[in-house]
């Protein structure tokens, strides 16, 4: 089932949670709403579910306007951030609840619940109570319960937020697989960009009630539309300077920026990702910046190097592959040359801080 979100606006008192938001969620996709807290992502999810009423705009599910339908009529599966399991019911009864209130025959309920418990790998735990389960297990009960009523859409609010790192990793992969199996249009909310990129096939980045950018994870990562997206999707080095005739000038140092050829000079901010900087022992042409190594952290899949540029008096973070790090054999205090391989410049009109 596809979802079409049209011009949704939502106000909570003085606070505008969503400003005229429109979005298409194609049928069968797995979409992540990504953003910091207060960006409106959870509000949007709750409006799709019918748990909040939008002040303006409409929600269409497969061309049917559901804006005026109540939550219980929308046939949407919702997984709450803290699961909201019914504490006084067993796991079995939790999963069966949706069918019970629809007066489904007992035999059918049993078959379906057992199927679902199998699907979420909780066979044999049907008689437990939520308080007797681990966080990851509760999460899966919540999912099974949402899926039991065969929802047209599956919505998850920070599904892995309350879990520890290892369980979270397992569940991400599992959700991905489950989605492939079930093919239910799924929207989930997260503030963790890694999670969004790993699980989703569509990522929507939100900020202050607006959609900043949407696209495939690769699109969004490689071509961030705004400095906010650039900043939000991982570490970044920021330089302020002036842009003029295809070059970015920053206190006596220049970087190539062919996209801007006007001769009229203007203020600009350049963004460079840590893994898109090369380090060398010798200068590599005019765009090499002399820097001094301050700190090296070789733990982890990449080696993080912290450098200080005496030209700017500013710090620079660079990620190296372990191989490159060993070639260079960097020590704190070493003088090296940093060459940005890829610079993104955003003009201040686009993004005022």
């Amino acid at each position, binding site marked *: 089932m596809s979802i079409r979100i049209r011009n949704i606006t939502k106000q909570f008192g003085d606070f505008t949670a969503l400003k005229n938001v429109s979005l298409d969620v194609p049928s069968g996709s797995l979409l992540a709403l990504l953003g910091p807290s207060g960006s409106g992502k959870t509000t949007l999810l709750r409006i799709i579910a*019918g*748990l*909040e*009423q939008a002040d303006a705009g409409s929600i269409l599910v497969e061309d049917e306007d559901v804006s005026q339908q*109540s*939550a219980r009529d929308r046939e949407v599966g919702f997984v709450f951030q803290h699961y909201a399991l019914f504490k006084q019911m067993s796991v079995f009864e939790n999963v069966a609840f949706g069918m019970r209130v629809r007066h489904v025959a007992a035999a059918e309920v049993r078959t379906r619940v057992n199927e679902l418990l199998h699907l979420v790998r909780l066979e044999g735990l049907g008689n437990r109570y939520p308080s007797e389960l681990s966080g990851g297990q509760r999460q899966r009960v919540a999912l099974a319960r949402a899926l039991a009523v065969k929802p047209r859409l599956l919505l998850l609010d920070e599904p892995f937020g309350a879990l520890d790192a290892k369980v979270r990793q397992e569940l991400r992969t599992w959700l991905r697989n489950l989605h492939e199996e079930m093919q239910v249009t799924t929207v989930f909310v997260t503030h963790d960009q890694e999670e969004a990129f790993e699980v989703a096939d569509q990522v929507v980045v939100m900020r202050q009630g607006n959609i900043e950018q949407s696209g495939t994870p690769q699109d969004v990562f490689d071509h961030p539309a705004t400095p906010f997206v650039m900043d939000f999707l991982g570490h970044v080095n920021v330089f302020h300077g002036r842009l003029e005739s295809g070059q970015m000038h920053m206190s006596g140092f220049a970087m190539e920026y062919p996209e801007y050829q006007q001769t009229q000079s203007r203020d600009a901010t350049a963004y460079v990702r840590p893994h898109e900087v090369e380090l060398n022992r010798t200068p590599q042409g005019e765009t090499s910046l002399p820097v001094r190594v301050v700190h090296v952290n070789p733990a982890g899949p990449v080696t993080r190097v912290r450098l200080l540029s005496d030209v700017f008096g500013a710090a620079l973070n660079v990620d190296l592959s372990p191989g490159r790090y060993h070639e260079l054999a960097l020590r704190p205090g070493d003088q090296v040359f940093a060459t940005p391989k890829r610079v993104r410049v955003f003009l201040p009109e686009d993004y005022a801080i």
Partner: protein
Amino acid sequence: MHPSHPWNKVSGPLEVTDSTLNIACQAKISPLAPRAASTLRTRKSAGGLVADEPLWLRVLLIGSAFTVIGLLILIPLVYVFVQALADGWSGLIKNLWNDPDTRHSIWLTLSVAPLAVALNTVFGLAAAWTITRFQFPGRTLLTTLLDVPFAISPVVVGLMFVLLFGMQGYFGPLLRDHGIKVIFAWPGLLLATTFVTLPFVARELIPLMESLGAEEEIAAVSLGANPWQLFWRITLPNIKWGLVYGLIQCHARAIGEFGAVYVVSGHIAGQTDTMPLRVEKLFQEYNNPGSYAVASVLTLMALLTLLGKSLLERFLERQMAAAQQEAQSP
């Protein structure tokens, strides 16, 4: 290591095992702070789409709540003062002051109740300190015993003291020989009142001190605080509002106690009649104005108790909200 042995529990906030009776006081004494916090949250979230009842139902429910409280509490409350002031203020004062027995009962209640509260404060502090700060065999039993007074009819409490100290009681002859009078006298009143109010302070302090944990106190001791400094500088400032809350409730109950006092006092007018007993005595003597005069004073005290309690609750709620705001802003 024997994980099942109670001595092997880790230190810090000790978990008090539920006993047969300790639920008896949860209704009266709910730890203040957590309640205040959740109150704010729930009513906000209940404003969502799903939790809303239709307006007519809400109006109906709120209306019935007011009706019930109006009939059961508000009208009787008003009625007390209407009756007490039937002959105007001068009549009320005359009824209170011109009757020496009534005057004596006021004095008696106002001397017995604070004394019982004082005794229970010391006891409550000692019991709460023992139960929340140490692990020892029999801790659960001790917690259970604290609740027993809630489960015994006040009349039975009185009976027990009569059995012990009455003329025909176990210690009766001994006391008589030494010229000490407990039953039908002031010490009996104090004993009975202290008994029925025994759990109030302790039951207020135990959950509070448990949730606070012992870290601050351990830190103070490690910094060289002596027991006196520990109590006045660390423990008391932390528990003062819970203590006040317990005192208020303890005092209210001490003033109003009837059954236990009725049995041990022998209700001798002018000697052992407390205010609640005086209300009954005057009522039996068909002296309604006198009875209502005393009742109105007691009701006023009850209202002051409620006022004190809700002011305290409001103050703590606001303090909590301020603390939360502070925690949120960087």
